[in-house]
């Protein structure tokens, strides 16, 4: 199991039956692969569909039905097509139960930076600022480190996406819960020791006596 699959499988465990969930592009979009249909979850794509489905069969794509990354998708029975004002009304208005987003950095306050690297990458925030501000629950799904650098840092050096404290960080090494007191180490990936996680993390972690291994079975049916 590669690092991304591990993250996606663990995040899938967080998804509750019958909820509305928005998955970011890239790694977060893989989470849908581990959420069984029996869970009755609706995935939202902020470009305007509630009830996002899998990729269509080759040659049967419809250019009017794409996800927020512009890729072809299908819609599940019960899906709804909505305009952008409704889409972000759902997001900001507290109607979205969960969003899963990628991250460049998360810091000890639980602040996320994921939209800009000044002077290098200025893609724009898209819907990320609204999602982090408005979703009932925000989960950051990312690799623990990039190019040998910890992405979990004492203080974000990149521009933050919102002042809201994210609810959970899931990486290939650990599950971490930002809290009032700091970053709480909740779980470790199978075969990874606490010392290895602490070593790979630039931020200070609060380490409890017992840190269980992640459950990678995917979403509960």
């Amino acid at each position: 199991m590669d690092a991304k699959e591990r993250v996606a499988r663990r995040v899938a465990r967080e998804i509750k039956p019958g909820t509305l969930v928005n998955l970011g592009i890239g790694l977060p979009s893989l989470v849908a692969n581990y959420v069984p249909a029996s869970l009755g979850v609706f995935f939202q794509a902020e470009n305007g569909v509630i009830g996002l489905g899998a990729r269509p069969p080759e040659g049967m794509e419809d250019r009017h039905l794409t996800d927020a990354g512009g890729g072809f998708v299908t819609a599940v029975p019960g899906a709804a097509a909505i305009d952008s004002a409704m889409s972000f009304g759902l997001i900001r208005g507290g109607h979205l139960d969960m969003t899963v987003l990628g991250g460049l950095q998360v810091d000890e306050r639980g602040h996320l930076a994921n939209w800009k690297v000044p002077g290098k990458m200025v893609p724009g925030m898209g819907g990320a600022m609204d999602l982090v501000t408005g979703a009932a629950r925000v989960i950051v799904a990312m690799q623990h480190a990039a190019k040998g650098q910890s992405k979990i840092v004492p203080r974000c050096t990149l521009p933050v996406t919102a002042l809201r404290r994210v609810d959970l960080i899931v990486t290939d090494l650990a599950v971490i819960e930002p809290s009032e007191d700091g970053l709480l180490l909740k779980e470790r990936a199978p075969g990874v020791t606490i010392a290895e996680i602490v070593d790979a993390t630039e931020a200070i972690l609060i380490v409890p006596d017992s840190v269980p291994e992640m459950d990678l079975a995917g979403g509960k049916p």
Partner: protein
Amino acid sequence: MKGALKPEAAAELIGEGASLLVGGFMAVGSPERLIDAIVARGTKNLTIIANDTAMPGRGIGKLISAGLVRHVIASHIGLNPETQAKMIAGELTCELVPQGTLVERIRAGGVGLGGVLTQTGLGTEVEQGKPTIELGGKRWLIEAPITADFALLGAWQADYVGNLNYMLTAQNFNPIMALAGQTVIAEPESIVPVGVIAPDAVRTPGVLVDHLLIRAS
């Protein structure tokens, strides 16, 4: 509704330096034939207000590639490297706006509201230079309304009075932008007799639409 225009005739309405609201999300739901006609005419110094600048060769990306755009107001330009390169080279300027704020600023402009109060962007670079207000025990960012000289829409069907509907995710910003353009030009995929679009299925009432583009040949 003033009648169906050829793309070239529609493009002639748009002068240099005009501001254009352009519907579409990564070019899905963008008025491609209208954009092609603007590129053919070479109308310069345009301000483009849209969710994104698509990618080179598609939708708004064609206006960017042709060097016709002076200013962009968008939520995301990351999938069009030309927009970023031209911004870095100083050939165009770009205001990045959170997507939900952008659509509400356009809606506010189109429905006669003086602005938007939102918590999105508080404490980030988006807040810089903008007023905030305390209301109901919370702090809100005040975002200004947006209107433009033209709204260029991509629709699925139009009828003879300009009522529009949209297909799936090709809807996106289009129905909101229909409210906020001084002149509204819609490019439907097909034009159908009045009544084919049932009143309950109309997403943009024809009273908002000034011109339709004639059917594609």
